[in-house]
């Protein structure tokens, strides 16, 4: 495996693409891993927090996802070419497991009050500014959807409900749920346009 030797400082590593960093992560380079973490942990944590609704659970999910990336090295989803997609898919998958586990214990909460509170802001980096700008774009696109379409998409993606469960929750036929999902996702695809390929 080829590892450029001149790039040794963390600031230099910050210039590398994720795929190049992952070659170093595979070789056990903690500085490269730190750069990958700093690039993607915020959106991963935000997703986990939105899904789990509790900070401690969200931190646990994100920690497991990144340590899985660390242990498995280059075994992320290369074909899609995105470390971010791999990490977020693992976070999403594990958060759904947590939701189902919590649901079995105390019922699934889809309106967690904690979500209204923002965590303390830290120093805003360029990456952070870009992430928040991208987030506004996606959030606005979702907000523009008719409420019934937005609802089924959020229940499926952020709360991990199946279409049958959503149908039962909302008291509508399962076919209607899937129809709304299709309409809403189609509109989101149009609203986001080519930008979905370059977000983050």
């Amino acid at each position, binding site marked *: 495996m080829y590892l450029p030797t001149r790039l040794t400082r963390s600031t230099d590593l910050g210039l590398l693409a994720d795929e190049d960093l992952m070659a170093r992560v595979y070789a056990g380079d903690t500085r490269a891993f730190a750069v990958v973490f700093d690039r993607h942990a915020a959106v991963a944590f935000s997703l986990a927090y939105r899904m789990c609704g509790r900070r401690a659970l969200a931190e646990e999910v994100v920690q497991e996802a990144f340590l899985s990336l660390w*242990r498995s090295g280059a075994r992320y989803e290369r074909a899609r070419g995105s470390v971010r997609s791999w990490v977020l898919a693992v976070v999403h998958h594990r958060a759904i497991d947590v939701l189902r586990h919590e649901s079995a214990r105390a019922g699934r909460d889809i309106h967690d009050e904690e979500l209204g509170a923002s965590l303390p802001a830290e120093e805003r980096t360029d990456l952070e500014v870009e992430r928040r700008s991208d987030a506004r774009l996606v959030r606005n696109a979702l907000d523009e959807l008719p409420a019934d379409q937005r609802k089924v998409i959020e229940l499926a993606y952020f709360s991990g409900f199946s279409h049958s469960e959503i149908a039962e929750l909302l008291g509508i036929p399962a076919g209607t749920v899937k129809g709304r999902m299709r309409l809403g996702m189609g509109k989101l695809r149009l609203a986001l346009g080519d930008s979905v390929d370059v977000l983050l």
Partner: protein
Amino acid sequence: MAEHDCGNEAAAYALGALEPAEAEAFALHMESCAVCRDEVAAFALVVDALPLAAPQHEIPRALRRRVMAQARAQPPPHAAATAPRWAWRGLAAAPRGAMAAFAVALAALALVGGIELSKGGTPTRVIKASIGAAELDISGGHGQLIVQKLPPPAQGRIYELWLQHGSSSPLPSTLFSVNSHGTADVGVPGDLHGVSRILVTDEPAGGSATPTGKTLIVAMLS
């Protein structure tokens, strides 16, 4: 898109909202339906963007400290060893039932009509694929697996490639997905010296330490 009517499964599939049996049936359907494959690929891009719709927060500093401390305390074993010892430990701890199920899955696959792809003179190996098609090109001890007509893995799933030496348990190698046309070009990491079989299974996102899902492709190397 509007004229196509295979039901409204594509969006629900991309969102991971189909029931497991429905998702499996739809994945099979996509194998022969380019419209649905394209629709799912388009929706998958939206799904990738959806995490940004969540309220955005900073990384908790304590979380960063914990993750980095654990990473420093537990370097990935493959970083220092010549052999992937972590995989052997995982296999040693694997439930006997899981390995037995895997052996049964392999035996079942052997009964499936295999697809033989030999291009006179090129080092392409015999491949058996229970779904789609595949070929393996070997050059200088390194392999490149090319798969075709393989449906995208279901939401929360991923394809995992395994290397098997002789009759020993398969070792995890790499993870991959396919594009909207069901194709992927997967470089097999490392040297194939001593490898007798390359396998592809369907696994949970993040991969598994031992095969747990359906075996889809088997390449015999010796």
